[in-house]
């Protein structure tokens, strides 16, 4: 009797161990490789494939399932057995680039979900669709050279300039400190983001996208009711809602995702970011207009300085002031001095509320005298004609 129990229990333990072994040897990728072989002209040996690229710090096992990704002849019609679309792999051979440097995901993983990085505790999910364009900037710093291949990325950077983001955000040492530095916006850690109001999947790109579409919905701050008694409310984010179309928001998201902390080795760098072209115009007003755009004044003061951006709890109707009639209130010298000095903090509408999040930053060290003079000329011309004619001309 006792002996039987021993034998039985030992057998049970052995069975559990064999089950573990069986589960281990029948992993998802084994079935996928068998599916490939069933239809392949020449069967592949069963086993994990990996591409190791030491300079990029990559060990990618994606080819365990994507067996024909760089062999169009062996490719099949169905995923994951297709060949890589386009001729990208000619210029980006897999032995040199592996996969995740462009596509993200979890290269070390060997299950479909984990490999695509669409699992908890993996912060770089597969860059699906146009999102993959964000990776191009790692090596192609001069985006104009890849405009045909990464149109959304280029569009995103263009929008970034047009909307004047630089007026509040810094990027690689250029720009202001009103809000966060965006130099590594694409490498932000998920623990640093509040996903409470994000409707889509809880990823960085989704957060960025929804935040671009409606910043105040994603970052609404805290009302007094939500906070402990006596605590000051926290204003919603000061990021203006630019009424972006879906495509524009996506383009900006892709541009943000391209700003990563990953440094590729020098020999991988195809081009560096092109410096801003110098402003070439004789006309002082046109020159001033270019300065207005260059420093992102438009971000807060609006196109042509017409204002309209919200600034919670600021006097002047809780808005950033329009610049249209600026010459009525300032002499040119006073205006120059004001721009150079900035104005912080702004006066509060409700003295018990939070300080307005937007303020006029200090430009003294960032702008040249020449630029400042031209800018003031431009601002003086913003007023409608009837007042302009009455204004003294220098």
């Amino acid at each position, binding site marked *: 009797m006792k002996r039987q129990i021993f034998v039985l229990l030992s057998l049970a*333990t052995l069975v559990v161990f064999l089950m573990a072994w069986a*589960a281990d040897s029948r992993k998802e990728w084994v079935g996928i490789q068998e599916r490939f072989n069933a239809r392949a002209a020449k069967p592949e040996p069963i086993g994990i494939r990996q591409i190791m690229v030491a300079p990029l710090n990559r060990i990618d*096992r994606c080819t365990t399932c994507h067996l024909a990704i760089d062999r169009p002849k062996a490719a099949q019609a169905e995923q994951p057995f297709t060949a890589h679309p386009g001729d990208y792999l000619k210029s980006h051979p897999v032995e040199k680039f592996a996969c995740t440097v462009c596509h993200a995901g979890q290269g070390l993983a060997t299950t479909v979900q984990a490999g695509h990085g669409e699992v908890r*505790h993996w912060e770089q999910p597969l860059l699906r669709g146009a999102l993959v364009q964000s990776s191009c900037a790692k090596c192609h710093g001069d985006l104009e050279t890849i405009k045909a291949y990464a149109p959304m990325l280029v569009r995103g950077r263009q929008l970034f300039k047009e909307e004047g983001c630089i007026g509040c955000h810094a990027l690689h040492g250029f720009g202001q400190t009103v809000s966060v530095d965006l130099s590594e916006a694409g490498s932000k850690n998920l623990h640093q983001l509040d996903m409470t109001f994000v409707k889509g999947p809880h990823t960085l790109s989704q957060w960025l996208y929804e935040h671009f579409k409606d910043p105040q919905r994603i970052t609404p701050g*805290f009302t007094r009711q939500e906070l402990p008694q006596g605590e000051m409310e926290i204003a919603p984010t000061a990021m203006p809602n630019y009424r972006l179309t879906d495509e524009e928001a996506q383009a900006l998201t892709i541009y943000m995702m391209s700003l990563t902390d990953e440094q590729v080795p020098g020999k991988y760098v195809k081009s560096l970011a092109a410096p801003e072209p110098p402003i070439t115009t004789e006309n002082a007003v046109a020159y001033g207009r270019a300065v207005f755009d260059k420093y992102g004044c438009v971000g807060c003061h609006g196109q042509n300085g017409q204002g309209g951006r919200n600034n919670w709890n600021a006097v002047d109707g809780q808005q950033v002031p329009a610049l249209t009639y600026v010459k009525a209130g300032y002499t040119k010298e006073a205006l120059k001095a004001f721009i150079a000095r900035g104005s912080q903090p702004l006066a509060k509408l409700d003295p018990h509320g939070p300080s307005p999040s937007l303020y006029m930053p200090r430009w003294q060290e960032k702008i040249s005298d020449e630029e400042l003079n031209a800018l003031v000329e431009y601002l003086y011309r913003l007023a409608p004609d009837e007042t302009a004619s009455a204004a003294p001309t220098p």
Partner: protein
Amino acid sequence: MNSLKKTKLWKSMFRHDFQDTPRTRLQRVFGNVFLHLHPVKIPVDALKFTYTWGLGGISFVLFFVLIVTGVLLMFYYRPTTGLAFRDMKDLEYAVTLGTFLRNMHRWGAHAMVMTAILHMVRVFLTGAYKPPREFNWVIGVILLTLTFLMSYTGYLLPWDQLALWAVTVGANMAANTPVLGNEGPFSIVTPLNDVKFVMLGGTSVGEAALLRFYVMHCIAIPFIAALFMAVHFWRVRKDVFSRQTGEKVDVWPHLVSRELLATILTLLVLSIWSLAMNAPLEEMANPTVTPNPSKAPWYFVGLQELLVYFDPWIAGVLMPTIIVIGLMAIPYVDVNPKGVGRYAFTERKFAWSIFLFGTALWFALIFIGTYCRGPNWEWYNPGQTWSIRRISKLTLMNIPNFWGLILLGAYFLQGMVISPQWKQRCAVRLGEGPTRLACQGLDFGLGALMGAALMIPLIWTPEFFRTLGQSRNAPLMQSLFALRSHLGAAGELAMVGIVTVTALCFGLGAVGFGRFKDRLWGRLGLVKYAVVIGLLLLMASVPAKILLRLLFGVKYIVSFPTVSFNI
């Protein structure tokens, strides 16, 4: 087979035959280096599963499993910050049976911590630590501590966020060690030479800490633990088994077969567990991003929960030290000879009550810390959804130091006792009755003083009373405040009444406690009494401080921020 047994080779290996005779049964035990830690005969009652629950043996089996799986894991693991996490991923995705191996090691470690604790509880409840086995109990407490340390050092090795921050919680507690921790009270050290630095090899958890923990985990602590285990087992045999009734039977096969059975069962359960559940692995460790909440390993989460009520030098350093020393002291202060070798509550009511209370408190705190705490360490019911947007701020105040010191002093003076010799001397001069009255009066006075020192500062420190009375987290203060406002002019009188009644109750309680103290003193004598009453008061101070905070909104009883000394 028989011809095989006649060969020289066989005979050189096995020095006895395998017939089931009394002689070979003995030979099997004392002729075998591993089995000879056993006696050759054992009382039949000691074999009963419901007596030992096999807990000590199972702990050892788990230790053995951990060594085997641990050595296998070492083939795949490199303890550097750049490679450790990658090696974890390799184990999960590329190594044959890697996930199963890691699960076995992880769950085995959790199980060993649990069985070691339960083994201690079992030994306590059956009085198995009583003479002549006191010293082996001490060894057991050391082994339990080493088990915690082995598990804690191993916790860091996966190098994910869970590991990094759990270890950071522990290391920050070490930084609060009195005198030798940079942030502790009366610190005499800097961040570059305090105990935290010694522990981590740096000021934060990094490359050096990973290597240190790796060496401690894989070599140093298991080696020391193995030594202590050898002593522990040897002493089990030499000190004679605690249950000594009935006839004796041969260890081979009766005990050895049961040990084998327990081994197989343990392996079976652990295998099923490892097949069913995967060990956690979060994002790669990132020292710049703190997960909210960050929790210590489960067996230390009770201490982390205590951080809500105590400064880290108490919760993270003083408490565990006193617990370990207190446990070691148990066999030397327990003079009750009864209740050895059986579960006998009625013979050891006091000992059982105190020990089970402490154990329950320990596990209750672990439960709260594990299941009821979310982001910002806010309270969430188990299963409730967490929200990082929920922030509540408690209104808490410190008792003024003058009253706080009186309160603290009166509390610990409750342990004082008037020895019978003194009482006799007094009785000679004053007579029996007046002496008894005087002693009771002293007890009463001390108790009343404690009650008064608690209530007076709460009510008659104006800012204190108003602030806490209008807060939302000090129910008793709120009621008192409401009562006084409601009664108007009579309010002050009512307050005086309440303080008087509180003082009276504390006084009467102290008189009752005095009788208990006299009895305890009579049984234990000076030194043992001092140890027992000290530990008792310290243990009771934990729920007392918790209540002070939950009911009255008291943060510190005494506070000297300049030397970081707050209680």
